[in-house]
């Protein structure tokens, strides 16, 4: 399959469990072992209590579409996903928000609503890189 997106570069050490999890079709999120805060993106200290004791939990992969846009052009030579495409901010049921794409829906602002339920779908790009994309829930 043609690689239609820029690959992550660098993949940082603190994010390794995230990228490793995706290869096994698991969306892993960092979680503070001290205060229980589940956060995004991976860091070596908890952004809520600053404790440097971070574990990982598997997300259920469900959430809501917090906000979105429709891309009518590519802004990066390496991003070759056909236009129009949906840029998405997803609020996961575990709390944190992440950026992704909403797929398997018509890229029409009349058909896409903020706060609609969404679920993760995994898209393998290379042996090292699988991405968490999202689609309308229960599709």
């Amino acid at each position, binding site marked *: 399959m043609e690689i239609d997106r820029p690959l992550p570069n660098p*993949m940082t050490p603190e994010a390794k469990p995230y990228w490793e999890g995706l290869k096994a079709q698991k969306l892993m999120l960092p979680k503070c072992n001290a205060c229980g805060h589940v956060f995004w*993106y991976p860091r070596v200290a908890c*952004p809520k209590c600053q404790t440097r004791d971070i574990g990982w939990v598997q997300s259920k992969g469900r959430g809501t579409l917090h906000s979105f*846009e429709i*891309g009518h*052009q590519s802004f*990066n030579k390496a991003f070759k996903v056909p236009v129009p495409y949906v840029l998405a*901010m997803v609020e996961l049921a575990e709390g944190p928000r992440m*950026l992704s794409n909403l797929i398997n829906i018509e890229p029409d602002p009349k058909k896409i*609503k903020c706060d609609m339920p969404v679920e993760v779908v995994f898209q393998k790009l290379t042996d090292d890189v699988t991405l968490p994309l999202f689609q309308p829930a229960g599709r």
Partner: protein
Amino acid sequence: MPNLRDLSNVACIVGVDESDEMGTLPNKSQLSLHVEAVTNAVRDAGLKMSDVDGIFTAGQHSPATIGEALGITPRYVDGTTVGGCSFIIMVGHAVAALHHGLCDVAVISHGESGRSQVGVSPRRDTAIPGQYETLYGFGPAPTVFGLITVRHMHQYGTTLEQWAQVAVSTRKWAALNPKALRKEPITVEDVLKARPVVWPFTVLNICLVTDAGGAVVLTRADRAKDCAKKPVYVRGLGEGTEHVSLTQMKDLTFSEATRISGDKAFRMAGVGPTDFQHIMLYDAFTSGPPIMLESLGIAKRGEGVRYFEEGRSTPGGSLPINTNGGGLSYTHTGMYGIFPIIEAARQLRGECGARQVPNLKTSLVNGMGGMLSAAGTLVLSNDNAR
């Protein structure tokens, strides 16, 4: 105990100017735009370059590079780079440095070859966008600020027609500014039907991309009286940052950085959010100024856009906003923050001709860095009353 109000009115803006030209300038390097702007602003102040002993700049060139290019050896430098509002924040840093005698004449310099990219180093992704953003098509500002905009529409029912009114109002001001790049009148319909870039934005919802420089000169109030032009007092100042990645912003429809910077500036100046006759806001997108009015407490949540819709912001309106024509129609290099300061100073001096705001005493400058990530606020006045 330190008192914020001790810094109020201790220093003045005494010189402002842009580069010799603005627009598409493939024959000028970014560094040349800095040098043009600084030499012009120092001349505007009636000072000599050898008087300058503090250099403040943000972006790709360090203050040392600017000093060297100008042929001066500063004894105070600041290169705080938190996005386009950095220059607004630096007015505050310069006031503090001047007050304590760390320098006597401060220059804040901006130069950016935003359109032609002459003498610009290529941008590199850092670890965070490279792993969590660019993979999905996110990148330039419109792909991020649209998320803020769409969430605001969802929560408050704001419409594309309302955002378009911001572009229409700002263009009316541009028509009165000889230095503005785009002066032809536009309608709400024009904005809605322009080329779609990333929904909810057409190209007319997004700022220009230009090559230009701008500079601001400050000195202590006692010395300001001897400069060439009427001094503009820095009565209040504030700064703040909240996030860089948009996923870390608590509420997409409200800028905490803007609120923090505004509260501090208003408290120092001893003014309330409604005490201004003129406002300059950082308009990289049509939705920016309304959300800034809300975050500053000038408008109620969800109602900032009414200032534009009801004509208060326009020429002849009760609260003129972005009287230079803004980033939307006058110029926008990439880090726009120096230009609203220049316009506010000119308005307070009474130099603005057809676009002059009458009987102006107090002006507000507020700008963002990144996507409402950082903010700077200034309360400027043409007298030293408090």
